[in-house]
């Protein structure tokens, strides 16, 4: 088993090395694509085997660590390169490799003919490796390696077409968007570094098992714990695009669409949720942090969803949707519903990947057109894509019995229980917006008249290599929710929520700390809330449908006029980018250049240095005058000196 577990991340690494070192020589895209996807498929197979193995173990023993070697050792600090499989890590590994495999296959079609075909697959394989390291690691430092590693891959893939232009605040090229992502993530990562220093101080180790085991012995809500968890959450806001570090994700859409699907929707951005869940016992000790997480999550969910209402770039709509959905997950984690958060990670990976890949098919068919105002009526030429997109739309809107309904309902229920009606209302409002912008998108893209140039563009379905992954994702978006059926809906089965049950051993300590030993809920309350939330989502979807399905563009213009300033506010994303640019980026540039360099360094410090040199020189040239070379004057000075000395000796 050791070998199998270690092979899960190492196979994609081997794929990366092979593609990276030799890929440029191979002409055949089939070979490159097969190799690139094959490694991930193999990892997925191994992950399912390991899952099967875990399932047959008795529950308390479902955690197994493989130590490869000791990585860093200095003084009392030591950390190993080791992988742990347990319910949490295997769920993430399955999502990463499973959805990752489908997206790899899809990319063979999407990237066909691209000059950087081999490079693309090399980066994708590297990404899968880093992501697997992130989730399988047994300690925080190795997770950090994966954490920054996926950030690097994200950076490389956002700027994959490095000579293409891209528009944004302070952004000219796609690579600038990549750089923005990298630096904003680094801000969060700095927090994670500090958290690690504090953790080493506190526990003498960065191993999850040690931290989680010893956490229980610490005092609830102590300053150190709050500081550690807040710093970790800062890192999560970077990686998972939450307020205040959310603004990089929409610009990350500069990358190829499969990248947006894989990295910026299904997997990497959920790493923050993973981290919070992984250290759930620690977070449970810091109720203050949990409250902040829940508040930030809810706020992000709502604001991002409102921005999504008016965007016209198909990928940007989906990007804001992703930010919003991640907000849902963090709200869940913040109220202590860790398994609901993980559940939403899983279902979201299915339907959001499907939405992105469907969008990619549309973009592909329209020759890189991303503006939904220049689409329309595509359901006629792309019926399969349309149906799948519709399925994903219904899932994200939370219409039963599709997957999104179950995970969102689980979150809403826990939020209502823990945070009360206010939190619930915020999320339901976000859910309304979600349904609205999704169906606005569907209506504008697939319905109404065809607004693209019909003389030159003849959109058609994507090739099979792209369509089959879409079909599989469509299937998963439909049935994925059955992993977590709430007890309320199947009261006769003992534990119908398979995923929650599977993850339970990991989250029990945290739940105990939070005093959440599941009280039998009043089912009628749950039914009412479920019905209400579904009705609100349905209303959102229907109203968008009615507004946009006939003549979308006209409706769009009407809304724009009707809303006026508010529309502008949403269109410009609450001016956050501009705010950062003017208040942080530009001042730092100016102060660095004008004050630190030109004034402090060049004028002041170097001025003093050169001034000292000049002073010595000038002193020298004054003293030099004494050395006239005239012997008489030397004799004269000597005489005066002797006289002075003598008189001093005589007088005193």
């Amino acid at each position, binding site marked *: 088993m050791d070998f199998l577990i270690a092979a899960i991340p190492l196979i994609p690494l081997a794929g990366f090395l092979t593609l990276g070192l030799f890929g440029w020589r191979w002409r055949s895209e089939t070979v490159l694509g097969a190799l690139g996807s094959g490694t991930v498929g193999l990892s997925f197979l191994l992950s399912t085997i390991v899952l099967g193995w875990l399932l047959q173990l008795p529950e308390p023993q479902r955690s197994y660590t493989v130590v490869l*070697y*000791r*990585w*860093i*050792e*200095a*003084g*009392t*600090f030591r950390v190993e*390169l080791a992988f742990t499989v347990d319910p949490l890590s295997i769920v993430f590994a399955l999502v990463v490799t499973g959805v990752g495999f489908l997206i790899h296959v899809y990319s063979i079609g999407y990237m066909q003919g691209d000059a950087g075909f081999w490079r693309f697959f090399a980066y994708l394989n590297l990404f899968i490796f880093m992501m697997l390291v992130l989730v399988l690691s047994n300690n925080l*430092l190795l997770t*950090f*390696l994966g954490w*920054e*590693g996926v950030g*690097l891959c994200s950076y490389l893939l956002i*700027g994959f077409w*490095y*000579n293409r232009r891209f528009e944004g605040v302070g952004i*000219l*090229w796609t*690579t*600038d968007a990549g*750089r923005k992502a*990298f*630096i904003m993530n*680094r*801000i969060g*990562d*700095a927090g994670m*570094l*500090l958290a*690690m*220093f*504090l953790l*080493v*101080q506190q526990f003498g180790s960065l191993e999850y098992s040690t931290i989680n085991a010893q956490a229980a012995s610490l005092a609830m809500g102590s300053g150190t714990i709050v500081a550690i968890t807040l710093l970790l959450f800062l890192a999560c806001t970077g990686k998972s695009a939450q307020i205040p570090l959310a603004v990089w994700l929409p610009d990350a859409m500069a990358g190829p669409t499969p990248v947006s699907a894989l990295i910026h929707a299904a997997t990497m951005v959920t790493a923050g949720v993973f981290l919070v869940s992984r250290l759930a016992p620690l977070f449970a000790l810091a109720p203050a942090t949990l409250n902040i997480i829940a508040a930030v999550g809810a706020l992000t969910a709502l604001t991002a969803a409102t921005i999504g209402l008016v965007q016209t770039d198909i990928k940007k709509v989906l990007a804001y949707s992703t930010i919003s959905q991640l907000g849902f997950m963090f709200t869940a984690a913040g109220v202590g519903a860790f398994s609901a958060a993980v559940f939403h990670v899983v279902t979201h990976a299915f339907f959001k990947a499907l939405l992105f890949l469907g969008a990619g098919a549309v973009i592909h068919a329209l020759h890189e057109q991303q503006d939904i105002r220049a689409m329309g009526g595509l359901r006629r030429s792309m019926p399969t894509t349309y149906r799948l997109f519709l399925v994903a739309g219904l899932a994200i809107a939370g219409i039963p019995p599709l997957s999104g309904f179950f995970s969102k309902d689980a979150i809403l229920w826990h939020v209502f229980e823990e945070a009360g009606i206010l939190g619930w209302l915020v999320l339901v409002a976000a859910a309304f917006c979600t349904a609205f912008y999704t169906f606005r998108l569907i209506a504008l893209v697939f319905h109404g008249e065809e607004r693209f140039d019909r003389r030159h563009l003849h959109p058609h379905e994507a090739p099979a290599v792209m369509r089959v992954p879409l079909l599989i994702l469509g299937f998963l978006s439909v049935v994925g929710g059955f992993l977590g059926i709430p007890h309320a809906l199947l009261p006769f089965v003992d534990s119908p929520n398979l995923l929650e049950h599977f993850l339970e051993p990991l989250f029990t300590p945290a739940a105990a700390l939070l005093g959440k030993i599941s009280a039998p809920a009043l089912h009628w309350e749950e039914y009412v809330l479920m019905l209400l939330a579904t009705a609100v989502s349905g209303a959102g979807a229907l109203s968008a449908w009615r507004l946009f399905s006939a003549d979308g563009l006209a409706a769009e213009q009407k809304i724009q006029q009707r809303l006026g300033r508010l529309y502008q506010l949403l269109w410009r994303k609450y001016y956050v980018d501009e705010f950062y640019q003017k208040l942080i980026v530009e001042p*730092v*540039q100016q*102060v*660095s*250049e004008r004050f*630190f*360099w030109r004034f402090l*360094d060049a004028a002041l*410090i*170097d001025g003093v*240095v050169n001034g000292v*040199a000049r002073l010595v020189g000038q002193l020298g040239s004054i003293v030099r005058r004494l050395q006239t070379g005239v012997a008489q004057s030397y004799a004269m000075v000597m005489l005066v000196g002797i006289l002075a000395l003598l008189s001093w000796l005589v007088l005193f």
Partner: protein
Amino acid sequence: MEWILLGLLATPLVGFVLILLLPRERLRWIHALSIAVGLITFGLAIALWIAFRPEQPGFQFRIALRWIESLDIGFRVGVDGISLLLVVLTTLLTLVALLASLEAIRHRQKEYYAMLLLLETAMLGVFVATDTFLFYVFWELVLIPMYFIIGIWGGRNRIYAALKFFLYTLVGSLLMLVGIVWLGVYAQQHAGGFTGDLERLQQIGPTLPLTAQRWLFWAFALSFCIKVPLFPLHTWLPDAHVEAPTAGSVILAGVLLKMGTYGLVRFNLELFPQASFEYAPLLAWLGVIGIVYGALVAFAQSDMKKLIAYSSVSHLGFIVLGIFSMTVEGLQGALLQMVNHGLSTGMLFLCVGMLYERRHTRELAEFGGLARRMPLFAVLLALAVLSSAGLPGLNGFVGEFLSLLGAAQSRFLDNFVFAAIGVSGVILAAAYLLKFYHALMFGEPSNPENYHLRDIGWLERLQLIPLVVLFVWIGLFPRPFLHLSELSFRSMVAKLEQLRFGITTIELPTPQAAPAAEPVQPSPSPLEPQRFLEEQLRRMPPPRP
């Protein structure tokens, strides 16, 4: 095995003499000879590494030859875990610098290679000297060839830069000479005889009265901090880098700066521990200021070499912070970071040199869109940039992480704020390094001169690829490197903690437990802290009011 160390010092010196004897037209001979000398020296350094026994405390390969007997000044050399890696780094970077010069240096080649080899002996001497006077001689000897390398083969403003470099560093080292003599005199008065023997002085140092320690601390520290260079003593560095030829920059950043940080460890911490406790927060503050300041100023640069020069100020800040955390983790990180900085910054200067050879400009704005023209170069430079930015998995991360971890945990500094500020350097490094990389590589080339740049050739690959291999090696398997110095730093920190807190938590291998494969010379060992300290404390003069 002592011959290895002697051979290491002698080989470049012999090479220096042989090159001077060769006729100046025989360029091929000169090239072949200097590369051969570089290779042999590097090979000897590797042999030294293999023969080195990390589980054995104290200096190894010790040689003591008579020099000024009446004053007990000798040609004493030896290597311990702290200096070994720096010796290997020096020989590696000299070899790379020699390779980088083959095409770049076009005039006065004979003198040039002679100077480079003389410089190598001098630098190695600094790291292996275990006699204060010998150390001082090598320390000053380094200045001479470097002065000429900048002053003769440098850029337009080379004379100013060379003079500034020379005077700046000379001012500091004169005070150090005073300190060295003072120490000898103190030994004469209180410990039975004038001496330059570092091992004896290490025992005497902690017994010095605090006032004297304070003065001596600064006499040494000033010289070292200028070399590092620590903010605000850094302004010679950008000028020297901008004007120096590529090989000069590589050596300057890669090795010369490390002489300063090495000196801080070897002399300030070991000879003046009590003064170090007092000044550690001050120096740590200067370190973190340097981290932030160097990064911000680097961000404002448009000249590639200046940008990297200021990035050195920032990176060396991490090292100083690690040193004055006075923890094993911090010191280990600092030492590894010295090596890492030498490799990654050395490589960045090599890359800038390669671009300069092609375009004869160092202005970032002149470039752009090179990724498509020079794909292999783009990949290798990306790795250097990421290593310098401290990406986990590459070498820079291990050193930075341990340095900051040490600073955060230090009982001497006892303040989390150092790590908290220092960590911002990680963010800023990403900002200025990516700015640098993007300006060179991405977008479309706006300048027609960039359309047809050729990718790097085999000679250039030979310089860069070994460094990249080391990035990955140290990043993923740092233990063979960390292991070398672990014992040296453990015993050093154990001593420091004993002196400061009266108790140490550091575990040291007991003498019995140490494998006694080879009979070790029983020396008056400073490395059994318990016994040594008792003796020290007994001998220490009572504190003055």
